[in-house]
């Protein structure tokens, strides 16, 4: 299964504060946290001299030679989009942030590696290219130039020869070829990567030390090729792929290419409480104009704080520099008080225009009468999402128009959310034959009540659903709330045992129609077609979409498919949160245009595309501390960035 197709039941709150962490017990952590072992065996692995020796001992992979490159390649490079960093940025200082669990391992592949800490490690393992967060066009990272093959399956890259691993050894084509060997290896115990680097990435070829090709399995538009083929290299001189790899790599610090590297000492001294990253003093990207004014802080210390409320208290004390505040209860009730009123902590709302998780009611067409389109349409008009947003969500959330919202050109702009309208609901229900109301006010057709179970898994959503339930009664529709725990709710839905499911799908880079709406996935368990959608003309369009190689065809088909889906009304979209909001102490400074279209980056210290934009202003830090001691105030700050407001 592709990672983008990985299904995740998500709560919007969880998603937006990025806490989809694994809950681990103390014992597990102490069992796998073994700094003593690491300092002896693994540190030896990590010494630059030893690495250099090993590098010299490795025979280079054979090259095909530059004459083997297709002659008609058109090389492209940075498209000239503006750089993100600020010229006012000051470098230096330590940035304090938090995570919910201590990592079980420092590996990024293999057992236990897929935890929330991995994003910090992954953000410093850069790739060949990435997409610009605002334009979504490819921009260079470790490659300087690239070219697309004539059959649109392969990307050719010219590597940036300046790129060096954190131990100073240059990154060459051999490291990319080794990546293929590494990812296909059974020793890493990572079936998903084994599969991806076999099925999706068919081959990697070397033409000289700084020219490679990555071969994909199917033809795709250029941007899609970049998202699937622009891999990151693995240090060939560092890894020994044997049966002990998992064990040896657990606490070894793998050389990386990004601006920061884990501080070896922090693993030992942090004792499971924190991990620090230090800025590389002589990073290969320091002179590149793309990274000017970025990655400014010298150290990033990531503290482990399990409970979000405790973490917020630490933030208020000044032990953390920033805190995300997307949940309404945090923003409205907790982020108030002296530190905010006196301007020590500044608040920030940054709108984005990106792919939105699809939260709402998913109707199972295997259940009568949900197989009737008028009934589904009636339900759409009987759901008072506006009232839910206006009351329990404090008008913080926005109506979601459809399943695929925020996919740029791939989203059909003509689809708008259906309003709560009792007349329309009544006329659709009448069309379906539901004309009489029973003694309890619920519509009845030949003894069949218009009542459905709504399966959901998060208790914090209960107040939201209660509003829908009470309002739906007015339309003669009964919704019975069925709160199950996460796993059971998920099982219930994925096996198509539900009637209506209240849930959200996470997003992918492109709309994924086949898994959600193709008849091949209908009427069978363990597929993502939870509405049991099967429609021949839709199938044909989905297949055409999958095999189209030009962006224009895909976009046109995408719009048509979305129009059909809107018409079928199997999904009643609820809300989206098209912004990031948070708070930071006033010594944290951000460039004027810190927000990006894809919503990432604001307080993110590392990510190549849009991270590391902020800096710490030591003068303001001193000023703030003095003001706190003296009881002086600053003007309270609430900055709202609406450039990407949809």
């Amino acid at each position, binding site marked *: 299964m592709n990672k983008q197709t990985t299904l995740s039941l998500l709560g919007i709150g969880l998603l937006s504060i990025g806490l989809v962490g694994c809950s681990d017990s103390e014992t597990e952590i102490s069992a796998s946290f073994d700094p003593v072992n690491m300092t002896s065996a693994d540190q030896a692995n990590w010494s630059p001299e030893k690495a250099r020796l090993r590098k010299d001992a490795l025979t280079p992979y054979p090259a095909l030679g530059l004459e083997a490159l297709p002659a008609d390649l058109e090389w492209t490079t940075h498209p000239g989009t503006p750089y993100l960093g600020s010229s006012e940025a000051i470098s230096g200082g330590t940035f304090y942030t938090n995570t919910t669990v201590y990592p079980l391992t420092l590996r990024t592949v293999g057992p236990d590696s897929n935890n929330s800490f991995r994003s910090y490690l992954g953000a410093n393992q850069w790739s060949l290219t990435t997409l610009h967060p605002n334009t979504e066009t490819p921009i260079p990272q470790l490659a300087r130039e690239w070219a697309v093959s004539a059959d649109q399956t392969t990307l050719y890259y010219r590597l940036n020869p300046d790129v060096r691993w954190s131990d100073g050894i240059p990154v060459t084509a051999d490291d990319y070829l080794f990546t293929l060997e590494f990812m296909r290896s059974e020793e890493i115990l990572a079936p998903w990567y084994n599969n991806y680097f076999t099925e999706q990435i068919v081959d990697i070829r070397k033409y000289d030390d700084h020219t490679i090709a990555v071969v994909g399995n199917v033809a795709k538009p250029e941007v899609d090729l970049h998202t699937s083929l622009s891999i990151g290299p693995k240090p060939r001189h560092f890894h020994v792929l044997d049966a002990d790899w998992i064990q040896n790599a657990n606490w070894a610090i793998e050389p990386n290419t990004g601006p920061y590297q884990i501080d070896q000492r922090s693993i030992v001294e942090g004792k499971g409480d924190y991990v620090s990253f230090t800025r590389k003093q002589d990073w290969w990207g320091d002179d590149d104009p793309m990274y000017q004014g970025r990655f400014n802080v010298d150290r990033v210390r990531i503290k482990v704080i399990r409970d979000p409320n405790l973490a917020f208290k630490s933030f208020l004390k000044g032990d953390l520099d920033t805190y995300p505040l997307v949940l309404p*209860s945090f923003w*409205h*009730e907790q982020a108030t008080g002296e530190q905010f009123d006196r301007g020590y902590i500044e608040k920030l709302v940054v709108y984005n225009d990106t792919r939105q998780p699809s939260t709402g009611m998913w109707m199972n067409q295997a259940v009568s009468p949900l197989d009737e389109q008028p009934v589904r349409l009636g339900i759409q008009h009987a759901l008072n999402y506006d*009232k839910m947003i*206006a*009351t*329990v969500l*404090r008008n913080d959330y926005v109506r979601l128009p459809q399943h695929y919202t925020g996919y740029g050109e791939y989203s059909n702009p003509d689809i708008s959310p259906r309003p709560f309208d*009792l007349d329309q609901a*009544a006329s659709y229900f009448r069309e379906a034959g539901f004309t009489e*109301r029973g*003694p*309890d*006010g619920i519509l009845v057709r030949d003894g069949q009540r218009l009542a459905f179970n709504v399966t959901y898994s998060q*208790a914090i959503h*209960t*107040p939201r*659903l*209660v*509003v829908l*339930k*009470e*309002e739906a*009664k*007015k*339309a*003669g529709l009964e919704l*019975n*709330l*069925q*709160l*199950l*725990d996460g796993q*059971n709710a998920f099982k219930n839905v994925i096996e198509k045992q539900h009637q209506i499911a209240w849930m959200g799908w996470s997003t992918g880079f492109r709309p994924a129609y086949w898994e959600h709406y193709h008849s091949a996935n209908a009427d069978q368990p363990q597929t993502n077609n939870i509405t049991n959608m099967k429609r021949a003309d839709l199938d044909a369009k989905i297949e055409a979409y999958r095999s189209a190689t030009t962006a224009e065809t895909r976009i046109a088909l995408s719009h048509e498919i979305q129009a059909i889906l809107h018409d079928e009304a199997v999904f009643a979209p609820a809300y989206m949160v098209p912004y990031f909001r948070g708070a930071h102490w006033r010594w944290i400074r951000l460039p004027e245009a810190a927000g990006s279209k894809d919503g990432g980056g604001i307080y993110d210290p590392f990510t190549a595309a849009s991270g590391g934009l902020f800096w710490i202003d030591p003068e303001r830090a001193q000023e703030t501390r003095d003001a706190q001691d003296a009881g002086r105030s600053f003007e309270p700050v609430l900055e709202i960035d609406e450039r990407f407001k949809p």
Partner: protein
Amino acid sequence: MIRLDPITRDRLTRFQGIRRGWWSALILMALIAFTLVAELFVNSRALIVHYDGEWYFPTYGAVIPGTTFGEEYAYETNYKLLQKRFADEGSGNWVLMPPVPFDPYEINSYAGEFPPHAPNFDRGHYLGTDIAGRDVTARLVYGFRIAIWFSIALLASTYVIGIILGCLMGYRGGWFDLIVQRLIEVWSNVPFLYIIMIVASIVTPDFGMLVFLMVIFGWMGMTWYMRTATYKEVSRDYVMAAKALGASDWRIITTHILPNTVSVIVTFIPFSVAGGITALTALDYLGFGLPPPTPSWGELLKQGTDRLDAAWIVTSVVTGLVLVLVMVTFVGEAIREAFDPRRLTRYE
């Protein structure tokens, strides 16, 4: 008129003599009786509607659509708005609302404010609203109704099973007693809270199912006391005498032994009631109880502790819980005192 035997009359007089227990019992009885007609006092449906010469009593019975009273909508009449409309029209039509004009499910929203709404006498929210905008008074009253009847149903079922089995064990003795004892010991070791949590996470339990589950894992307690009490009674002379006269086992158990063990049963009742209420509240608090949006004290408590800034929620429910549990304890204490066998013992 039931004729009470002198001992029972004596006990009752003594019970009445313990003032706080007696008053608590009276108040609790009144509250339980009140829950039976709560709809007349706390309800969004009107008590009486007088419309165009016709009389309507919407409290009990089917939903009356708004169209009946000349409103434009086909769903259930909003009587509060109807009352306002009639008052504005001044056409002689009128609506009589209950003292608390809210039902526990109704979501009240007020322009420019977000729930939870603070207590407000003008709007009739005497204890404010919860985080979804539902009236706390209504949630408390109906939550109490569910909790107390849950408790009574639980008590009745566990006692029936416990008394029958306990009596049989004590009366029969021997192998039967031995085997059932071991069974109960094994069964008592099943971690019943976990079982309920597991079941509740797979299916959403309703009232009957929750009672059933609690009975299945909660009947054992009473058997021990009944077994001991029966053993004691069986060895008494009057049982021998009854046996000698040829009375059947059933007659001996029901007419001779049971009445003599009643003091054991009665002293446990108040504590079982308290236990039932706290069990349901705890389950609801943890989210494993009755499905939302059922009004429940546990759910209110959860909301209240999550939102300490909306102090009226947590204050209301904690006050309610404490008052009820204290009263039940007073009753229990008084019963124990009144039924204390040592005061009646004539031989030593």
